[in-house]
Structures are given as C-alpha cells and as structure tokens.
C-alpha cells in the first residue's frame, strides 16, 4: 500500500545490493584473448548473416555479419585477426544449446582500418533522424541493459511527433550488477550528450535519467555532466532503490506516473526508453565512427577472487574475465550466471563468449546463491501479491499454470508478467513461481502458433475448394455458352436454310472444293491398298 508512494511503483522487494559502486572510476580493460567467438544471434530478432569466410583477415570494427531484416543488428570484429571457423558453439542462453558463431583468432595487433565506417558529422545535432538511425543500425548497437533489443528499431517510431519523453534507464536495480553505475561515473558526459542528441533527433520534449538513490556517486557525476553540457531539458531523477525499479515499465511509472498499456509499447504513451550505456554507445558511434565492439561487464560474486567492472571486447570467453579478476575463489557449489540473481541466465560453464547483452557475470557460491530448500505447498500467504510490481495475483496464476488452465491464467493477465522474480523470491514455500509462468506462457504461445497454423491450413483448404468450385463453374459456364452458341448457330443456319435453300454457300458446302476432292480420292486409294495388304492374313474379312 505504501510501496507505490515510496518507490513510485507498487510492490517490489528490497534486496541487498552487493554492488561495486565503491570501485567506480577504476574500470580496467580486460586483456584481449587469443580467440573470440561471436554468436550470430546476440540480439532480439533475426540472426545476423555472416559476410566473412574462414581464412579472411579482419581488423577491429570490420563487419563480420550483417543485419538480416528490420529487427536485427550487425556484428563487428572486436579486434584484428583471422576468421578461423564459422560453426556451432555453445552460447550463453538459457537453453544451453549451441548456435552458429563466427570464431576469430586474434593476431594481437588490434589494428583498425583507420577510416570510420560512416562519415563523422561535424555537427551531430544536424543529422537527420534517418541518418542517426542509419548510424545506430550500422554500429550494431543494441540495448545494453540486458535485453539486447536493436536500438535503431526503438529510435524508429512510426510517428516521431508523438514522442514526449526520452527516459534513460540508469536504475540498476538487480543486485551485484554495477556496469551501468560504472558507465555513468566514467562516461557521464557521453551519456548526457548522447541523450541530448537522441532527444533532438526523435523530437522528444525532455530527457529523464532515472538513477537509484543508492548510487550517489553516479547521481553526482551525472548531475555535474548535465550542468557541464548545459542542456536544460535533460533531468537527472533520483528514484528509490527497490527491485525492480529498473524494469522498463516500472521506471516509466515511477518517473511519469503513466503505465504502458497491456500488450503495448512505451511509444504508445509517447515514451522511448534506452539504457544509459546504450546512450553512450550511440554517442561514441556518432562522434567517433566506432561500432559496438566492447562493453562494460561486472564480474562479481562470492566465487570470484577480486570482483571488478571490466571493459570487455565482445566475444571474449567468460573464463578470461574470471582470470582477469584473479580466478575463482572456490569451485565448491559454484554457480555461474549471466545477468543478475533475479533475472539472470545460468551458464553451463565458463567456456562461453561475452555477447552484447552480457552486463554481468555472477559467480555465486552457497554463500550468496544457495539453492533453496525443496518447495512446500502454497500456504496462500499472499506475500507474492504484495510484491508483484505488475499487481498480478501470482498465487492464482500459479494454481492455474499448475492445473494447465492456461485460458484462466490469461484472463488473469499472465502475459503482463515481466518475470522479475519478486514473487518467487519472497515465497516462504520456495515455489519456483516464475518457472510455472514461463511454462504457461510457452504453452500458450505454442497453442497460439498451432492454432494459427491450423487456421492457415483451413483457410488454404477453403480457398482451394473455392477455387476448384470456381473453375468448375467457369468450365460449366464456358461449356454452356458454347452449347448455346452452337444452338444459336444451328438455329441461325436452320433459319438461313429455310430462308434460302439454294444459297451459293450451301451448294459450295455440298460440292467440296477440288483440293478437298483430291484429298478424299487419295485417302480412298490408301484405304484400298491397306485392305488388300491385310487380306492374306485371313483376319481382315470384314475390312
């Protein structure tokens, strides 16, 4: 009840931060590894299409794979070297499956082409909206908050006049993750300038930058950067430290009081949200002609010797990051996650590459990521209802999902669940609630696809049946018309016969032309000859 007032959104939970904000300003560059791996699908949408072949020499910034389709993003080489394979490799994905990757063996020189991939504008604010989108697209920039949605698509609202507010998400609400915090402290000016540029080009009225109150250093840096840049329409807003404050929908609610309509997008209410890191990446792409080839990754958890934020080349194996942080503290009960402990994906091992979405590598042990005790029955305590930031009824959704009553789960707005995990976190019975929702959502999606397929098949069948029927009718119609025509002609002929029995045309018909007569004569002769030939066989008596 009091949560809404305090945090700006209902529900949510207070979690221990475990942030590395104290280390901010000391982000090191991780060493460039010998081998880098680039999954073709490291963004939401279509996988990129490779444009290099095994054996190709590439330099940093070269395009390895092009965007394939509207919602897609290109992938660039993050160092110089040789393409040594294009093959299936394990990728950091919840399925633990392998996917096609481009493998680059670094030559250690880390050279670039020298010239930018696109012309660097002398006055970035004079770019057109289309030019900006073009650069963001070419640079392969995706949302760096973890979702990896192609940023160009977000900048391409159908009707720019409707954009009122650009929100930069600096509310790093998940425990352990501090890469955005590091970016805000070290790249504050790039973020503010990037924000101003985006604002001008998408014609937003204002920019709101939401930062959690626990991150005082970032707040100070960003405010200072705003003053330095002097843009009067960029505001740094302090938001309460409460998970999931950094959820897109929650941050919008906190900062504007508006809600994104169910199954809609922020743009529907005139809002565009980008991560702070994304804004910095866009600014660097525009002013330096650099594609997205590195990002800040938080390497942390009780399983790591010296947790730190690192500037990491995309494609670096996770093992190399752990080594850069002093290696593992222990192997006992070790659990590797990509992302935070609330929404992160578990990793089978550390032989996986950093992708554009990798904001954090969390190596937890029993100290911080202890597996919960076995689930108990639900005691209907309602704690899940209290913490749900979407104001769902998690406990009822759970019963429906468990009973496979997906239609009922849908009437309770299952699709509005953001899978933040608050309900499962507070559940005294340790029921893996979100797992049940994911299961139900998948089942609903599959059933939907099947229904759509069935609908298509039915439509196709009906169309075919209709077409056959139409053809049949057309044929019949043609036949009928022919018959009618014939009848009409015959009738006309009869009428003509009756009218003029000795018409010349008629006599000509009865007396064939000489040519025809000659042909008839020839045929008759041939027939006679054949009859004579067949006669001795004794079979052609009748002939």
């Amino acid at each position: 009840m009091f949560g809404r007032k305090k945090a700006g959104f209902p529900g949510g939970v207070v979690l221990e931060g475990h942030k590395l904000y104290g280390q901010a300003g000391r982000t090191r560059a991780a060493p460039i590894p010998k081998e880098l791996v680039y999954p073709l699908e490291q963004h939401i949408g279509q996988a990129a299409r490779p444009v290099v072949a095994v054996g190709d020499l590439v330099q940093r910034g070269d395009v390895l794979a092009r965007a394939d389709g509207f919602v897609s993003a290109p992938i660039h080489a993050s160092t110089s070297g040789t393409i040594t394979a294009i093959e299936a490799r394990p990728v950091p994905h919840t399925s633990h499956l392998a996917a096609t990757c481009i493998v680059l063996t670094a030559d250690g020189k880390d050279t670039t082409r020298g010239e930018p991939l696109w012309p660097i504008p002398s006055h970035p604010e004079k770019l057109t909206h289309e030019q900006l989108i073009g650069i963001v697209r070419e640079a392969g920039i995706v949302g760096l908050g973890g979702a990896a949605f192609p940023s160009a698509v977000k900048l391409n609202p159908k009707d720019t006049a409707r954009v009122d507010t650009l929100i930069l998400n600096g509310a790093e609400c998940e425990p352990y993750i501090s890469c955005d915090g590091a970016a805000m402290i070290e790249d504050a000016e790039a973020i503010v300038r990037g924000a101003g540029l985006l604002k001008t080009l998408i014609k937003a009225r204002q920019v709101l930058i939401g930062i959690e109150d626990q991150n005082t250093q970032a707040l100070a840096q960003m405010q200072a950067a705003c003053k330095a840049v002097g843009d009067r329409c960029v505001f740094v807003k302090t938001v309460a430290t409460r998970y999931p404050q950094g959820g897109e929908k929650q941050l919008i609610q906190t900062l504007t009081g508006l809600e994104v309509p169910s199954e809609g997008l922020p743009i529907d209410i005139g809002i565009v949200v980008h991560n702070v890191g994304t804004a910095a990446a866009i600014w660097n792409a525009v002013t330096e002609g650099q594609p997205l080839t590195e990002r800040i990754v938080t390497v942390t958890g009780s399983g790591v010797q010296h947790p730190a934020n690192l500037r990491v080349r995309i494609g670096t194996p996770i093992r190399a990051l752990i080594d850069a942080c002093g290696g593992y503290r222990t192997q006992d009960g070790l659990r590797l996650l990509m992302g935070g402990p609330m929404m992160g994906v578990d990793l089978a091992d550390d032989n996986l590459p950093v992708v554009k979405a990798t904001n954090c590598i969390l190596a937890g042990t029993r100290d911080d990521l202890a597996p919960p005790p076995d689930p108990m029955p639900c005691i209907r305590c309602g704690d899940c209802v209290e913490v749900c930031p979407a104001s769902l009824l998690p406990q009822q959704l759970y019963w429906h999902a468990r009973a496979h009553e997906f239609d009922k789960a849908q009437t309770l707005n299952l699709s509005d669940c953001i899978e933040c995990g608050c309900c499962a976190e507070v559940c005294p019975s340790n029921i893996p609630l979100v797992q049940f929702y994911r299961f139900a959502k998948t089942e609903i999606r599959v059933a939907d696809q099947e229904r759509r397929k069935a609908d298509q098949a039915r439509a196709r069948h009906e169309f075919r049946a209709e077409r056959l029927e139409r053809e049949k009718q057309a044929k019949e119609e043609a036949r009928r018309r022919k018959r009618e025509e014939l009848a009409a002609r015959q009738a006309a002929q009869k009428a003509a016969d009756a009218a003029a029995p000795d018409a010349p045309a008629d006599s000509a018909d009865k007396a064939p032309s000489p040519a025809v007569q000659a042909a008839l004569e020839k045929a008759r002769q041939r027939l006679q000859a054949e009859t004579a030939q067949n006669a001795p066989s004794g079979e052609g008596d009748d002939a």
Partner: protein
Amino acid sequence: MIISSPWLHKKRGVDAVMRDVLLALIPGAAVSSVLHGPGILWNLLLCVGTALASEAILLHMRGRPVRRHLRDLSGTLTAALLALALPPWLPWWQPVLGTVFAIVMGKQLFGGLGYNPFNPAMLGYVVLLISLPVNMSVWPGHEAHGFMPWPYVFGQSGVESLDGFSGATPLDTIRTGLSQQLTLTELAPSLESHHHLLLALGWLAGGAYLLWRRVISWRIPVAMLVGMAIPAMIFSIIDPDRYAGVGFHWLYGASIFGALFIATDPVSGSTTPRGRLIYGLGIGFLTWLIRTFGGYPDGVAFAVLLMNICVPLIDQYTPTRVYGTRPRKTS
C-alpha cells in the same frame, strides 16, 4: 528443482512464518495463564501433543515425509490456537477430541498443509462447542490461582467442582442478563473489564509483532474490527440499553484474538488485497450478528468458518487492477 531465475530466495520459510505466529502468541498466552490458571498451559500441552501425534500418523498413512511436515510447525500452531480458545480444565479427552478433529478432518483429509478450506483450529473448536456447549462456556476466574488441578485432569468433568470459583464469560453474562430483561447499565458491574483489557493487550502485543515482521497484513484484522464496529455503533446508538457498544464488542470475547490470529490464517482466508478487506468485514459483521441475535454467546469461530466458505467467491470477484490494464470485468 530450480532451473531458471530468480536465483535468490528469502530465507524465511513456512516454518519460520509459523514460528513467528507461535512466538506472537506468547504474551497473550501468558496473560491468559495468569488470569485463568495453569489450565491454559495444560491445554497447550495436551493439544500440541495430540496434534503432533495425529499429524504424524496421518502423514505416515498418506505416504508423506513425516519429519519434514511436522517441522513446518503448522500443526503445532493449529493446536496452540485451539488450546488458547478452550477454557481450562476441560476433561482431558475434550481438547484431544477437538485437536484430532482439527488435524485429521480439518487438515490432513483435505490434503494437508495449504489445502484446507476451513480454519482447522476453529473447526475443532466448533465441534467441541456444538457437542459440549456447557463445558465450553465456563471460564474460571482469577480465583483459580493456587488451585490444584490434578484431580480434574484425569478425573471427572471439572465443571461441577469448578462451580464455586468459576464464572460465565462476560458475553454469556450479557446474553443471560438481556434475556432476563436487564439493561446493559444494570449488567455493567458484573463485568471484570480489566481482565479482558489485559488479555486484549497481550494479543495486541503479539499482533504488533506479526505486523512488524510482515507475517500478517493489516487488512483482515482492521476490516474485521471495522465490520464489527459499524453495526455495533448503529445499534448501540439506537438502543444503548439492549445493544452493546463498539468498545464492548472489541474488548470482550475473542474479537482481538480472532482478528489477529484466527482470521489471518492465510490458507483458509482470502488472498487478494480487496478480498481480504471483504473477508475481514464479513467476519466482523457475522460475529456481531451471532453475538447479538444468535444462539451462541460468541460468534468468531462460526463467522470465520462461514467466511471461509465464501473465500473462492471473494477471490474470484476481487481481482487486482493489473499494470497497464483497465479494471477487469469479472465474469
């Protein structure tokens, strides 16, 4: 088996929740023991022992992990709540009967923890109240101090022997008095109000602890007391001689205890925020109704059970407004 996020889990499990409620019962139970004698503690011992034994047997028969479910303390809590609702020095088999009914019929036969539609403690209480109404409404006063209980524990029903120093509850006194055409003003001196005030304070202390620990939410207790207060206020204004006021209804009988410890039972109660308000209001109103016009002196147990029946209906018609949606039409 956890195979996806979230990977963080609050340490407080079901057993910790139940333990908190048990702890919260201590002040009230202590006050009650001082006021009503050690018979209260004897009840606790009897009920908890019976609950653990009957639950263990039923869990074993159902093929469930016995140790694990006994450790969740839910059976212990049910027994404790029932014990504190019973008058002391009943014949030993009565608390045992009530507890067995609560645990076996009220809980385990429905599927155990989390599956019981009725508040098991109140089910056990009502069984005893309906079957043995005389015993159940006699509470000894503070004279019971120093009284040696042991002959009565295993012996004959204590009621006759207790006659000399036991009294009817205030609610019973009022009820009988009103039926004898006495007015409330005439009845007032026969009530030992400070005892009940002490008891109420004991329960309130525990309730405050539960609210602070966020084991219960304010909704059900507040709604229940409001649901009781509204009709009480209206009727006491209309005819103060025949209808008791808000303070009386709040302080006497099981109002505070019921609001904080009985109505807040999560398993058998409503789960939606608005539903909890309706559920609480319903319990409060029904309690007042039964006390004022019904055949029993107190009505908390019946009111809770009656509202338990309504829970699926209430939950169905009190959905939350989900983020980004308009208020949902219930169908």
